[in-house]
Structure formats: C-alpha cells, structure tokens
C-alpha cells in the first residue's frame, strides 16, 4: 500500500512541478480574465461618452428621451425650441459637443417614416437597438391611444404563461433549460477530463515501457500497484488543475469589477435597458435561475459529480493504461485507442439527445451503461432522475470500473515487458487469461 502511495506521489509531484503545468494552470483563468476584459472593452468602447443631439419635429418624444440615457456613456441632448431645419443642423452638432444628431420628423402614426441619424461614425449595434426599441415603443403606444385603447389595460393583458411541472407528488422548481445547462456543463467537464487525462496515462505508461524503467520497477512493486498508482497520481493532477482553474476564475471574477467596475456597470446597464426593459420578465428569469439552483439539490449533484468523475476516470484510464502497456509505438497507439474513444464520442452525441429528452430510452440506457454513464447520468441528474436509476447506474459503474482495472492490470503486467512485437487484439485477449 505504501509503495502505491510513493508511486502516486511521484506521478503527481513530477507533473505539478513542471513549468508547463504551472503556466497552464495559472494562465488559463488569466486568459479567460483577459478575454472578459477585452470583451467588456469592446462592448463599452462603442458607448464611450456618446452624446447624441435629438431634433424632434414631431414633439412626441420629449418625455421618452428623459429616461433613455445610459449612465455617462450614452447621453441624449433633446433640442427644445430649435427652429432650424435639419439640413442646416446636421453639420452643426459638433458645436454643441455631440457625436451625431438624431432626426425625428413629423410622421403619421400609421407610417412612421423619415427617422435619420447624422454623424461621422456609425452607431454601435446595441445603441441603435436601444434607440429603435424606445422609439418604436412610443410610436406603438401613441397609435394605441389614437385608437382609444388604454395602454395600461393592454399592458396588464400581456401575460406570460409558466408551466409548473409536477413529478410524482413533487412540484419541480426552476427551469429545465437552466438545469439542463448545468448538467451539460458537468458532463462536458467529465468528457474533457476522460480524454485529456486518459491519454496522459497512456503516454506515461508507453514512456516507461519504451525506456525500460518498468523492468526495474516490477522487481520492487507489483504491476497492479504501478498501474493504479499512475492512474491515481495523474487523476489527482487533473483534479488539481480543475480546482486551480475554478479557484482562480472565482478570484478573477471577484477582482474584475474592482479594475473594470465602471465599464462593467455601463455594460450591464446597457444590456438591461436593451433586453430587459420589461422588469417582470427580468425578475422572472432571475427567479428561474435561483429556483433552478434551489431545485437542483446541490449536495446530490456534487456528490454524484465526484462519483462519476472518479469512477468514470478509473474505467477509461484503466483502458488507456492497458493500451499504453500493449503498444510499442505511436501508430499502434492510435489504432488501439480508437475503439476506446468511440464510446466517449457517442456519449457526447447522446448528451444532446438527453438534454432534449432526458427520459427517453436512449438517455436511460446511456446513463446505465458504464461506457457512457459518467457523462450521460450527470447530464440527466438535474432533471430529477429517480434514485433507483441513479443507484443502479452507480452500482454498475463501480463494478465495471473495478473489473476494468482488474482486466487492464492483467494486460498491463504482460504488455509492459513485451518489446518490439506487433500486437493484435487476439494476443491481448490471451494475456488476460495468462497465468
């Protein structure tokens, strides 16, 4: 047992001490942070201190423009009492420190035409949308009033229907979309982990085999100890990297508003005014998110994630280790890893089916069979999968991963000592039963 620990320690420390590991662990969240800063900058740069003069010949929008400013970044200067025609004004907006002039003609409510914006620079997409949305809303309201409709009555008639889902006797809280998104993110994380760290296990085994260290090692430790130590050590490296990324991402998210505070507030204000002018819609969405997380049963999700993460990794890393031990060169490795990666890729396809139909038979079997259960079950859990299904799936995965580790160890113990020989699947099959 202690020897396995030393192997785990070596596998872990040699990797986490590598400059490439430290750089990647630190740089990834920093890169994401930089990307966010760039995005915020891009999003706010078009809004930077934009002042727009408004020449409203219709006189309908004076009140509307009072509430249309977006912080310091987008200001509307409503020209009152100005009699000059737009043809003479359109070149003079710079005299009043404006970046452009918005012209609103006298228009018919049935045909609101002739709206124009004069400037040297084009309007940003979000600014344009912001203006169009507000003006359209005002025109619509006026058209309704002209037809003697009460605007408040019409607004009160605008109802959004929510469907409450009752599963068994329990009322399901939150939205399926958000639950699905959460499941999808977890499934994706496991998928990346299986592929990246499984391949790392294989490379490490092949390396030890090709430089013959393994011949020295197996005179002191059992091949099984060597294999399992390697799998656990590399798995721990992966966990460390994920935890590091999560921690740094949280830190960057907390620090970002300190450095980018005003810009982010401006961006949020912009987004809110663009997309969520209807406050009840925004509140509903926020409620959905928070309820989705309440309804998720975080403890169940977290523990299940850990379980599928660990045993899914053991299931696949064992196969990768066996292949690494059996092959002697890279081209062989590719041939043999293909059958292993197929179930992982199929699981990815099944994931989208699961999201749209979480209780279909494809999703059910995908979450029961050990080849796909680590990815599919974790995607399904937020949809409140019944306990018996999850326990069955976990039990099968547990047995299968231990069984797979046993079979892999039998292949491994023979494979690591075979040099310069072309290996076939038939031969690998023989090694499993070799005494």
């Amino acid at each position: 047992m202690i020897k396995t620990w030393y192997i785990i320690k070596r596998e872990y420390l040699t990797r986490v001490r590598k400059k490439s590991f430290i750089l990647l662990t630190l740089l990834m969240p920093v890169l994401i942070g930089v990307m966010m800063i760039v995005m915020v900058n891009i999003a706010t740069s078009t809004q930077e201190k934009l002042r727009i003069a408004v020449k409203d010949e219709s006189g309908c929008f004076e009140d509307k423009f009072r509430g249309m400013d977006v912080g310091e970044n987008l200001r509307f200067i409503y020209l009152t009492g100005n009699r000059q025609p737009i043809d003479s004004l359109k070149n003079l907006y710079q005299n009043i420190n404006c970046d452009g002039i918005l012209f609103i003609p006298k228009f018919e409510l049935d045909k609101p035409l002739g709206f124009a914006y004069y400037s040297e620079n084009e309007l940003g997409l979000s600014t344009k949308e912001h203006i169009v949305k507000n003006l359209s809303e005002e025109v619509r309201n006026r058209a309704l009033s002209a037809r003697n409709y009460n605007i408040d009555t019409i607004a009160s008639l605008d109802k959004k229907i929510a469907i409450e889902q009752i599963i068994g006797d329990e009322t399901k809280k939150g939205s399926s979309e958000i639950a699905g998104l959460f499941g999808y993110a977890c499934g994706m994380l496991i998928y990346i982990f299986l592929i990246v760290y499984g391949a790392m296990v294989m490379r490490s085994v092949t390396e030890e085999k090709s430089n013959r260290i393994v011949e020295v090692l197996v005179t002191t430790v059992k091949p099984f100890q060597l294999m399992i130590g390697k799998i656990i050590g590399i798995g721990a490296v992966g966990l460390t990297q994920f935890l590091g990324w999560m921690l740094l991402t949280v830190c960057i998210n907390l620090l970002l508003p300190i450095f980018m505070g005003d810009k982010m507030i401006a961006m949020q204000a912009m987004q809110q005014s663009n997309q969520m002018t209807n406050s009840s819609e925004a509140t509903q969405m926020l409620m959905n998110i928070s309820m989705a997380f309440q309804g998720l049963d975080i403890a169940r999700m977290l523990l299940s994630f850990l379980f599928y993460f660990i045993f899914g990794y053991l299931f696949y890393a064992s196969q990768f280790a066996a292949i690494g031990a059996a092959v002697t060169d890279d081209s062989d490795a590719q041939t043999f890893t293909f059958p292993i990666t197929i179930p992982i890729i199929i699981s990815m396809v099944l994931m989208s089916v699961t999201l749209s139909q979480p209780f279909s038979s494809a999703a059910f079997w995908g979450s029961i069979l050990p080849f796909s259960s680590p990815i599919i079950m974790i995607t399904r859990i937020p949809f409140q999968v019944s306990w018996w299904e999850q326990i069955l799936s976990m039990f099968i995965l547990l047995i299968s991963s231990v069984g797979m580790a046993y079979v892999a160890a039998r292949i491994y113990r023979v494979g690591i000592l075979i040099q310069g020989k072309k290996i076939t699947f038939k031969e690998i099959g023989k090694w499993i039963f070799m005494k």
Partner: protein
Amino acid sequence: MALQDVSLSIEKNKIYGLLGPNGAGKTTLIRNITQIFYPDSGTILFNGEKLAEKHQNLMGYMPEERGLYKKMKVAEQLHYFAQLRNFSNIEATQRINYWLKKLDIESWSNKTVEELSKGMQQKVQFVATVLHQPTLLILDEPFSGLDPINAEIIKNEIFELQANGTTIIFSTHRMENVEEICEDIFLINDGKIILNGNVKAIKQQYKQHLIKVETATDSESNETIESQLEIVQTYNNQWLFKLKEHQTQNDILKVLLQQQIEILSMHEVLPTVNDIFIQKVKNEI
C-alpha cells in the same frame, strides 16, 4: 523465449556468469528469478524457501537496457527507488550519499538523468541496483557504455559486494569479463542449460591439448620434428603443437632440444570461454 527443464543451483557469495546467444532465454530466466514472470511448472528456491514476494527486496536487478526517468534529478530518482525498497527518508538519504560519494558522483546529484552521458547514467543505475545491499545481485551487461576507468571502478565494486556476502549473477556477451570476474558459468541456448560449472574445470574439460612454445630463433620445421610432433601452426618464433595420445609436454621439449633449438618459454593453451561458447552453441545447432 520459453525455458525447458532448466535446473541450476547457485551458491552463496559466488559470481556466476550467465551466457548465451541472443534469444537463448537468459532474460526469461532472470525474469523468473526476479519474479517478473512466474514459471508454468517447477519451483525456484531462495535460501531453501520457495521463492516469494518477500525475497524481492533481497534481490537487485540491473537490466541491459537502462531504466531511469530522464527528467528526474539523480538524487530524487535514487530516493524514489529507495522508498520502493521500503527505506525511511533518513536511511534512504544516508545510503544515497554513501554511494554517490563512493562512486565519486556527488556533484551529479542535482542533475537530471538526461544531462548525463551514457556512462554516467550507468553508474547511477548501478547505485539504484545496489542501494539496498541485495543478497542476490543480477547484472545484465553492467559494463556497456563504460570507459575502462569506470568499468574498473564498477568491477571493484562488484568484488567488494561479493566480499560482503552478495551473490552475483552476471549476464554478458563480453567473454573477457566472464574470465576475469566469474568463478562459475551457465551456458544457456534455446531455453536449455547446455553447460555449467567452474570456469577453470570447464576450460580443462574442453582443452585441445595445445602447447605453445616460444624459441630464440624463428620457427623452421624439419622432417624429424614433423615425424614426431603434430604442428598446428608456426608464426615467427612461435610454435603451436597438439599433443598426440600418450604424449606429454616433455616429449615436445625433448624433440626440440635434440634439434638444438633454444626454448624461451612453453605453456599449455587452454580454450577461452569464447571458444567454448562458440563450440557449444555451434554443436547445439
């Protein structure tokens, strides 16, 4: 290579040579002894007990192809091997320092293996093999890649280990090393032991009764010599005779003296292990 009916016994404190052509089964035999493989039938006894896992720690094995982690530092690597041999941190450090100092390689301890030359790596590998003071040491081509000075250092270490109670099995193709180091040899071919025993006794057993004589003048044969002696070869002032049945070295001496040839030296030529090796393997084929 599968082994068949291999039976041999190894005495404590001796140095054995394990010889055989490529693919003869040497590595398979070693792997059986080191418990990397288990025999389908038969038993291996260690100190009179059936070979078991507990004996692994009493053995040291240095394979022909060197096995070290290229990116790891020398001291760190040796520490790892010592830990796998169940040494505590303190004990491991003490032993590593002792051996690094003994082989004068202390200054390499913080270098990674890939920074070292092949010969240097060889010395590190040797330390990794003997660190735990094994009772049975198996060395596969321990001198490959070593310059004569370092080969001498390792050879002396092998003798010192033997003097301190270690039994050594030495697998090699370099026959001069076998004659120099080994007391006993095993010759293995096609999975079978075809010759084993004491090196001196085997040489006697396979001798061709050849006598080499060095004379003061160049060797010139004549009818009298040729009628009484069997000449195998002459070269400058050297003669090589093969003794006929019932002949002794004195008979050669007598004939040459009768011819008034001045003799500088005379000795029996014993076959080298290399000659015996080639002869036995060829006969087997």
